[in-house]
């Protein structure tokens, strides 16, 4: 697959070095070559010779002491390796023609290559390793990218975008675009060009992370990252990443790194001049730093904006919460006003309602009829929340209103049922026990519509119950609600909601029906008020939040308690 991509490159388009340069490079690599032989090779290409001599006489490649006038003298003064490296740089430069890939900015490519080269050289100088080889390898390390664009000139439009990415992302994008990365393509080019092994290896391996002592591979990797600070779109993140990578790989301090970065733009300009390459004017590093700071400031600003937005949303939420709580508080107040007002202890009926949520679906009520009898009820609306509270309000209102005229609990339930059935929504229903207590005869007439059994405890502490005789209110249009009449005989009648039987005790267990009956019996000697209080305490003192509404009603002929 990879071979086929390279084979797509037309021979005329493939960057190829001048023949004389190849011969000089090969000769420089052999130990047996002498300076005369090299001089002879160079004389075949006077243009190349002149260019090489121009370059070796610049301070950039270390020769300032004396003017060198021949290739053989170059070898004597600077050594074979330097000549090889300089020849390679020139060969690479001459192999790429401006405009050979439409839409691809060759000058910018050179600028980046030179930046990698001078960065590699600076790092090599810091590490005290062969900095000339590093310069040459740095110049060549992304040469594979050219081959990729040669093979896929249609992808040249992505070159600016690719340049703006950091080395890691760039490789991923290359893989997607070309099915191959520049280091892989570079390795193949190095082989075609028969480049010296040290440089060929550095080109193919410069993205590998080495854990051993930093070698030329690590140096090129750092150089690649350093270059990306100057080219990346997001300079602040790239600077941070590069700094992390370089400082760790080279055991460099951040101030040493700063010094290194500051010298890069100037070095790039010098090297470009030496190599005779046309590049854009280099921005000082301080300007890059300013850009980084601006980006950071912008990021901070948007963070600040987010914080403000969050703060204002929280304030809005708090405001709505307060408003809602206020509304719920008002609703709860209205609900409370629907509950009967507190009566003196001599009154034979006592009740309690504790809402699990702020609004309750439970209710109880009692009121005296003109003839002295007392109507009472306890009910539970299915579901919870506002809609349950509204139905509760409706039911209690109906009960009070109709109760004043209809003095039979069963009949009253039938009327209430009809009303609720006609207007009830979402399958909502009401379970209710309604009764009339006659204090004079101590008798009760009671109807249970789908509610939990009413419990009677007689004077001898014998228990009996009155189960529901009919379904809850609001389910069937017409229904009969049978009444049960009985004499209380000094005993007690308890009505309660499922919040009581399903309430949790201190140990987390449900009170349950048995538990509630046991509680009724054990508290029998206490006054009604103390009894009610003791029962609710069992369910509430340890609980932060009630699981369900707790409602309880006790009917009992007034008697004397200790």
């Amino acid at each position, binding site marked *: 697959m990879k071979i086929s991509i390279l084979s797509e490159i037309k021979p005329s388009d493939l960057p190829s070095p001048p023949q004389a340069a190849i011969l000089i490079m090969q000769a420089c690599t052999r130990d047996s070559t002498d300076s005369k032989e090299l001089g002879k090779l160079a004389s075949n290409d006077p243009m190349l010779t002149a260019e090489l001599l121009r370059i070796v006489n610049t301070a950039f490649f270390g020769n300032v002491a004396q003017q060198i006038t021949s290739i053989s003298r170059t070898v004597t003064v600077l050594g074979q390796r330097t000549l090889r490296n300089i020849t390679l740089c020139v060969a690479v430069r001459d192999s790429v023609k401006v405009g050979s890939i439409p839409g691809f900015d060759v000058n910018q490519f050179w600028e980046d290559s030179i930046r990698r080269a001078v960065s590699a050289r600076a790092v090599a100088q810091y590490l005290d390793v062969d900095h000339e080889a590093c310069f040459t390898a740095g110049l060549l390390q992304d040469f594979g990218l050219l081959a990729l664009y040669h093979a896929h000139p249609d992808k040249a439009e992505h070159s600016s975008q690719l340049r703006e990415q950091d080395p890691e992302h760039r490789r991923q994008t290359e893989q997607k675009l070309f099915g191959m990365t520049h280091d892989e393509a570079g390795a193949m080019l190095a082989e075609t060009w028969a480049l010296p092994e040290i440089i060929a290896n550095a080109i193919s391996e410069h993205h590998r992370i080495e854990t051993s002592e930093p070698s030329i591979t690590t140096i090129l990797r750092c150089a690649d990252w350093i270059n990306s600070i100057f080219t990346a779109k997001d300079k602040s993140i790239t600077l941070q990443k590069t700094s992390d990578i370089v400082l760790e790989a080279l055991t460099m301090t951040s101030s040493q790194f700063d010094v290194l970065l500051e010298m890069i733009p100037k070095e790039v300009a010098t090297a470009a001049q030496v190599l005779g390459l046309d590049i854009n004017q280099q921005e000082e590093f301080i300007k890059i730093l300013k850009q980084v700071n601006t980006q950071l400031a912008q990021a901070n600003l948007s963070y600040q904006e987010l914080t403000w937005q969050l703060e204002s949303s929280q304030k809005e939420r708090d405001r709505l919460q307060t408003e809602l709580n206020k509304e719920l508080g008002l609703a709860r107040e209205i609900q409370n006003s629907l509950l009967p007002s507190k009566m003196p202890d001599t009154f034979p009926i006592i009740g309690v309602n504790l809402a699990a949520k702020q609004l309750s679906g439970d209710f109880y009520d009692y009121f005296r009829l003109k003839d002295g009898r007392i109507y009472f009820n306890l009910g539970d609306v299915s579901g919870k929340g506002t809609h349950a509270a509204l139905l509760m309000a409706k039911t209690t209102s109906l009960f009070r209103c109709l109760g004043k005229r209809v003095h039979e609990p069963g009949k009253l339930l039938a009327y209430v049922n009809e009303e609720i059935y006609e207007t009830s929504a979402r399958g909502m229903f009401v379970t209710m026990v309604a009764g009339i207590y006659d204090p004079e005869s101590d008798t009760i007439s009671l109807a249970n519509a789908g509610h939990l059994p009413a419990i009677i405890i007689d004077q001898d502490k014998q228990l009996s119950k009155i189960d529901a005789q009919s379904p809850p209110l609001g*389910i069937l249009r017409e229904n009969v609600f049978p009444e049960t009449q009985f004499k209380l005989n000094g005993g007690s009648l308890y009505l309660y909601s499922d919040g009581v039987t399903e309430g949790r005790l201190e140990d987390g267990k449900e009170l349950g029906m048995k538990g509630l009956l046991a509680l009724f019996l054990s508290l029998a000697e206490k006054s009604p008020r103390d009894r009610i209080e003791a029962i609710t305490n069992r369910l509430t003192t340890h609980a932060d939040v009630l699981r369900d509404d707790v409602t309880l009603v006790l009917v009992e002929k007034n008697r004397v308690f200790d």
Partner: protein
Amino acid sequence: MKCEISTRGIYTVIALQGEVDLHYSPQAREPILTCLKKKQNVLVDLSAVTYIDSSGVASLVEGYQEAKSSGVKFGLVGVSKAALQVLQLARLDKVFSIYDSVENLLAN
């Protein structure tokens, strides 16, 4: 709570599992009403229901009322002990059509 829907004969069987409480009952209500509104005969299988509260019962009541106004069948099958206790206590066993199993209902 889990809810599985299948077709058995002329019935769409909606099987509820686990606790049908205030939190989960909307998940039971929704498929029951959707099927009924499509004029399907619905059986709610309560055999795997471990707990049902008044909001769960309300979903069944709503199904019952919806079926009545749409003229389709609605019933409960295989009602678990926990669910039956709640229904019996509230005398709702008199309201709903309750069948022991879908098989027996289809056989008859």
